[in-house]
């Protein structure tokens, strides 16, 4: 009756896998039995992740690549023969009040959080649909969205725009890829203890204000998000597509 989170014989690609959530997802997928292809701009980060995966008796392959560079991305994808799972995770945030957002920051965030996310998803999907047995074995794409893909937040207008965009992309992709039995979902975490969030939380006033918005009264751990990603990646969720899994401690329920 219970479908275990089991990814044996699956090949997964994780972008932004050097740090934070991407790193946690890559390790969790490997722990569930997947062979993991890890992508990031920083080789030293990837080597560390690869070592951790090796320690857990998992297997991984690393590629140094900036996902905003389409040519590089295409070259990397060419080297990969098969793909079952994509964790479309690479992303960033530069909080600024709406009236003060610089063109440079807006362009940077749209390019990374939306354009690159689209490109990675499209290239991987093109590869996935080519597998002859795809309909039988299925596939899963998980976009790293955010609770801010569901609700607004001060100083997060561009990030809101990006993540709402990802939510839309995910639903559209789910409709189009369903005939290939490829499922597409998003994860919407609240603030997670990652290097990126730790930087924001140096501002104690901001930290306390944000914690007040999380009914469970704590930030999410990387393992909370990585486990949810593994659940969506595995056949344990084989009828879940075109939806979002909120890991937000109740933030958006208010």
């Amino acid at each position, binding site marked *: *009756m*219970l479908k275990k989170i089991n990814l044996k014989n699956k090949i997964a690609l994780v972008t932004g896998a050097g740090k934070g959530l991407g790193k946690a997802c890559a390790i*969790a997928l490997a722990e569930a039995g997947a062979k993991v292809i890890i992508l990031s701009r920083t080789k030293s980060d990837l080597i560390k992740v690869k070592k951790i995966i090796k320690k857990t008796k998992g297997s991984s392959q690393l590629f140094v690549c900036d996902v905003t560079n389409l040519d590089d991305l295409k070259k990397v994808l060419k080297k990969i023969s098969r793909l079952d799972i994509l964790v479309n995770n690479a992303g960033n945030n530069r909080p600024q009040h709406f009236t003060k957002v610089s063109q440079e920051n807006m362009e940077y965030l749209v390019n990374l959080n939306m354009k690159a996310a689209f490109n990675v998803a499209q290239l991987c999907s093109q590869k996935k649909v080519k597998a002859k047995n795809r309909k039988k074995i299925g596939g899963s794409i998980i976009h790293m969205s955010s609770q801010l893909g569901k609700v607004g937040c001060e100083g997060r207008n561009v990030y809101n725009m990006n993540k709402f965009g990802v939510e839309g992309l995910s639903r559209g992709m789910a409709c189009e890829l369903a005939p290939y039995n490829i499922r597409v979902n998003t994860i919407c975490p*609240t603030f997670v203890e990652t290097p990126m969030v730790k930087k924001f939380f140096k501002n104690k006033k901001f930290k306390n204000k944000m914690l007040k918005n999380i*009914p469970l009264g704590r930030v999410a751990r990387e393992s909370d998000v990585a486990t949810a990603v593994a659940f969506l990646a595995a056949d344990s969720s084989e009828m*879940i*597509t075109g*939806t979002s899994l909120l890991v937000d401690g109740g933030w958006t*329920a208010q």
Partner: protein
Amino acid sequence: MGIFLKDINLKGKTALITGATKGLGRGAAIAIAEAGGNVIAIGRNQMELNTLKKEIKKFKVNYIPFNCDVNNFNRMKSFIAKLNKLDILVNNAGTNIPESFLNVKKSSMETLLNVNTKAVFNVAQLCANQIIKLKRKSGSIINISSIFGVVAGQKRTVYSMTKFSVEGLTKGMALDLAKYNIRVNSVCPNIVLTPRTKKYFADKKYNKYVKENTPINKVVTVSDVATSITFLASEASSMITGASIIIDGGWTAK
């Protein structure tokens, strides 16, 4: 428990499941036992409560059956107040009487409101109070909703009214119970093949309607839903509250 991957493990936990003799409730009871959880099964059919015992006992967990109609508030109240272990509620008992809006009988409307909304509220309140009284470290309540808690369907006005209400109740409960570390979520399945829906599927037109509206070309199974319920019941989802897991093969993404 790996480094980042949390197991769906319910060892030492006790779950109360309403409507446990058939369909989704029975599936949830078995999946919870499979994950190591003890089962308290509420149902109205003694024979089915007995046959469920055999399936639950296979997993070497405790089984307490209680033959009771969830509408019987006083019996439910005194039973739940006597429990000395309770961590999880699968608030599942529910029914449907499909009628077109203009012809909905007053009696059907009242039946659905009594079972799907009032009894759901009452059982949830009784169990939440008991979990708090027992000073459990954490709790998880899973309300069984439906895609018709998110969108409408033909001849489903009253059902939608009740299931949308369950969605609202879920979010409200999540906020009120967060400080006790009791998480509250719902699952929203597409039409699952169960003893109750068998008669709907027997109608060719209905069959076609479900197929055409489900991008992933499969019917949701009891096991699909039971797996999500067990995931939400366990600490694998410890930051998920006030959320809904939609298990619909893409029905509501369109």
